[in-house]
C-alpha cells in the first residue's frame, strides 16, 4: 500500500515538471464524467461512432508512431501526469506485427520504417542467453536487466514477423535464441514459473508465449533449410502445445480460466483476453480443435455479457462474476480480435457482429483531438480514472485497437471480394 501511495505521489509530481498537462488532465476527467452521465446503454441499441474505421485506424497508428522513442523503442504509455514513459521492450516487440499489417493494408511506408527501427532496438537488448529483459527499458538508469519469459515470448512474436518481412539472418538467429531459451526455461508440466516468471509463479496468460513459439515453429518448418531447422521447428511446436495443454487444464466448465495468478491485482479483462488470444492463436496454428472450442466457450460467455450490457467490465471475479464498473479498453479491443478470429474459424456471424459493435464503441471513446500522446490514444480505463492503468494512454491498448480495426477491415473486405453466395453462416 505504501509503495502504491509513493508511486502515485511520484506520478503526481510529474505535473510540476509539465504544468501544461494539468489542463488536459482536467479536460479529460470532465469529459469522461459527462459522457458517463449521458450515455444510455440499452438492449436494442449499440454505440455508433461518427468516424469510419479507416480514419480511426490511421489515428491509432499515428499515436503509435508518435510513441516511438529516438532509440526505436516504443513508450509504454503517455501519462496525463508525467508524459511519455521510457521505452518498453515487450510492447515494442509485439507491436511490430501490427506495424507490418498496417503497412500491408494501407501501403504506409512509415510503419515499415518504424517496425525496422523497433526490431533493431530489440536486437540490441537481447541477452547472451537469448532472453529479453522485463519491465521498462532500464538502460538509462543503469539498473541490471532481469530476463523475463513473458516479455521474451511477446518480443519473439515481433521477431518472427520481422524475419518474415525483412528476411535478415540476424533476426532469425535472435528469434531462434529466444525460442531455445523459452524451451530451456519451460517446466515439465508445460508452464513457466521461477525467477523469470512474473511474481515467480506460473500464469495461464503465458499462452501468449505458446502462440509465439507456435509461430516460430511454423516459420522454422517453412524455412527448413536443413534437418536441424526441421527438428527445431518440431521442438518449438511441441513446447507450445505442452503449454497449451497446461492452459486448457485451467478452463472451468463455466468458461472461466483459473491460473491468471496476479497477486495484488484483480483479474483484469486484459489478462483474461490474453489467455484466450494466446490459446486461440496457438490452437489455430497447431490445428487443435479442443483449444478453439474451449476459447469459443469462454468467449461466448463474454459476448453475451457484452451484448447485454454494451461493454465488458474491466475486471471479474471467478466465473465472470461481479464485473467491476470501469472498462479496460485494451481488454475490450482484445476480445474484438478474439471474436473476429473465431468468426474466421467457425463462420458464426454472431462473433463478427459483436466485434463490429465493440469496434464502434471503442472508436467512440478514442480522442479525435488533442496533442501528441492523447489524440488517437487508447486510455487504460474508461473512465480514465478506472483501476487499470489510470490517467494513461497505453501503447498496447493502441496496438490491440489497431489490430481489431485491421481485422475488421480485412474481413469486411473479404465479404466484398468473395461475393454474396460465399457469405458465411452461423450453424
Amino acid at each position, binding site marked *: 500500500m505504501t509503495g502504491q501511495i509513493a508511486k502515485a505521489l511520484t506520478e503526481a509530481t510529474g505535473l510540476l515538471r509539465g504544468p501544461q498537462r494539468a489542463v488536459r488532465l482536467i479536460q479529460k476527467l470532465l469529459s469522461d464524467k459527462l459522457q458517463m452521465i449521458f450515455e*444510455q446503454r440499452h438492449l436494442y*441499441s449499440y454505440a455508433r461512432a461518427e468516424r469510419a474505421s479507416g480514419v480511426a485506424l490511421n489515428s491509432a497508428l499515428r499515436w503509435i508512431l508518435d510513441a516511438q522513442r529516438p532509440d526505436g523503442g516504443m513508450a509504454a504509455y503517455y501519462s496525463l501526469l508525467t508524459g511519455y514513459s521510457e521505452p518498453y521492450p515487450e510492447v515494442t516487440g509485439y507491436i511490430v506485427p501490427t506495424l507490418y499489417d498496417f503497412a500491408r493494408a494501407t501501403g504506409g511506408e512509415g510503419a515499415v520504417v518504424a517496425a525496422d527501427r523497433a526490431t533493431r532496438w530489440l536486437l540490441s537488448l537481447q541477452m547472451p542467453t537469448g532472453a529479453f529483459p522485463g519491465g521498462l527499458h532500464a538502460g538509462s538508469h543503469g539498473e541490471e536487466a532481469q530476463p523475463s519469459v513473458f516479455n521474451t515470448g511477446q518480443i519473439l512474436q515481433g521477431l518472427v514477423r520481422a524475419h518474415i518481412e525483412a528476411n535478415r539472418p540476424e533476426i532469425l538467429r535472435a528469434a531462434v535464441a529466444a525460442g531455445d531459451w523459452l524451451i530451456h526455461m519451460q517446466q515439465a508440466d508445460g508452464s513457466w514459473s521461477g525467477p523469470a516468471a512474473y511474481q515467480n509463479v506460473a500464469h495461464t496468460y503465458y499462452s501468449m508465449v505458446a502462440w509465439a513459439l507456435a509461430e516460430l515453429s511454423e516459420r522454422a518448418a517453412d524455412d527448413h533449410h536443413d534437418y536441424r531447422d526441421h527438428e527445431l521447428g518440431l521442438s518449438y511446436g511441441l513446447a507450445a502445445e505442452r503449454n497449451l495443454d497446461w492452459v486448457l487444464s485451467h478452463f472451468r466448465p463455466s468458461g472461466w480460466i483459473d491460473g491468471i495468478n496476479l497477486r495484488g491485482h484483480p483479474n483484469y479483462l486484459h489478462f483474461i483476453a490474453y489467455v484466450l488470444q494466446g490459446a486461440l492463436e496457438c490452437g489455430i496454428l497447431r490445428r487443435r480443435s479442443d483449444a478453439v472450442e474451449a476459447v469459443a466457450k469462454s468467449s461466448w460467455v463474454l459476448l453475451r455479457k457484452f451484448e447485454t450490457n454494451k461493454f465488458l467490465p474491466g475486471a471479474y471475479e471467478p466465473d465472470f462474476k461481479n464485473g467491476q464498473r470501469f472498462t479496460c479498453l485494451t481488454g475490450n479491443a482484445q476480445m474484438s480480435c478474439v471474436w473476429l478470429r473465431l468468426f474466421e474459424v467457425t463462420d458464426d456471424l454472431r462473433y463478427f457482429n459483436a466485434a*463490429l459493435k465493440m469496434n464502434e464503441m471503442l472508436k467512440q471513446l478514442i480522442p479525435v483531438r488533442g496533442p501528441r500522446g492523447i489524440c488517437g490514444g487508447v486510455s487504460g480505463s474508461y473512465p480514465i480514472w478506472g483501476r487499470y492503468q489510470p490517467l494513461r494512454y497505453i501503447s498496447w491498448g493502441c496496438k490491440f485497437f489497431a489490430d481489431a480495426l485491421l481485422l475488421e477491415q480485412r474481413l469486411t473486405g473479404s465479404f466484398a471480394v468473395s461475393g454474396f453466395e460465399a*457469405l458465411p453462416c452461423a450453424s
Partner: protein
Amino acid sequence: MRIVVLCSSEYSETACAMAVRMAKLGHVPVGALALSTLDRGTLLRKLGQWGVEDVIRYARAKLIPHRGHRQAQARNPYLQPWLKHGEEIFRTLREVAKFYGFSVAFCNDQNAPDSIARLREWSPDLIIFTGGNILRKQLLEVPRLGVLNVHLGLLPEVRGMSSPEWSLLNHVPAGVTLHYVDAGIDTGPLLQRCEFPDVAECESLSDLRNRLLAFGLEKAAEVIAGLDQGTISASAQSHRDEDRQFFVMHEWLQARAAERLTKSRRAAVAGTVNG
C-alpha cells in the same frame, strides 16, 4: 376467452391492430397494459436507440398530428385493414379501447407489483405480448394458459433480436413463430411455426418486417381460435439448451441482409419473366 394485451406504448400500431383483430375474432380484450411513453427512462432509451432527430420526428408525428392526419396511412401499410375505422385509422390503443369498450392501464415496468396486481384483476386466460420488458416469472404465472408472443423468426433456429435479418444471412426461411413465453429468450413452448411465403416480394428489410408483423397477426388469430376450440396445444422446443440466441445486428451486416433480400427479389422477377 379473456385476453389482455401487453405493449411497449399506447402508440404501438401492432398492439392496436392485435386488439382490433382479437375483437373481430370475437374476443374483445378485457384490458391492455402499456408502458408509459413519456417517462424519462423511455425517452432516454429512445434517444439512445434512434438518435435525437428520429425521436423528434416520431414525437411530432405522434403527438402533434397534422390536419387530416386521421385519413393518413398507417406506418405499417399491411396493418391498415385492421387499423382502418370508417374513414379514419386508430392512432392509439386508447382509441381502440374506447371503441370496443375495454380499459387501458399504464405502467413504467410491466413486471412491477402494481402491474402484476392490475393484470390479476383482469384474470386473463391469455396475455398477448406485443412489446415491452423482458417478462419475469411472476407475470408469466398470471394468465391461465400463458403469455403468447409472436416471434418474427422461425424457432428454434433464430432466437432473440433482429430475427428477420439473421434469418436472411443464415439461410433460414423467413417466418413467424407463435409461442408461449417462458423464463428464457424465445425458448418457450411452440404453438405454431409458419414460414412466410412472400419474401421475394419484399422491397426492403423494413418492408419484410412490416409484412411479417401482419402475417404474424393473422397467424395469432388462427392460434387463438385454435386454443379456444381446443384444437391447438403447445409443444416443447427441440434443442432448447443450444444457444441459438441472436443479438441486435450491426448496420454493416444489415446492409448485407438487405442485399440478400434484393437478390432474392431479382431472382424471383427473373424467374417470372423467364417462366
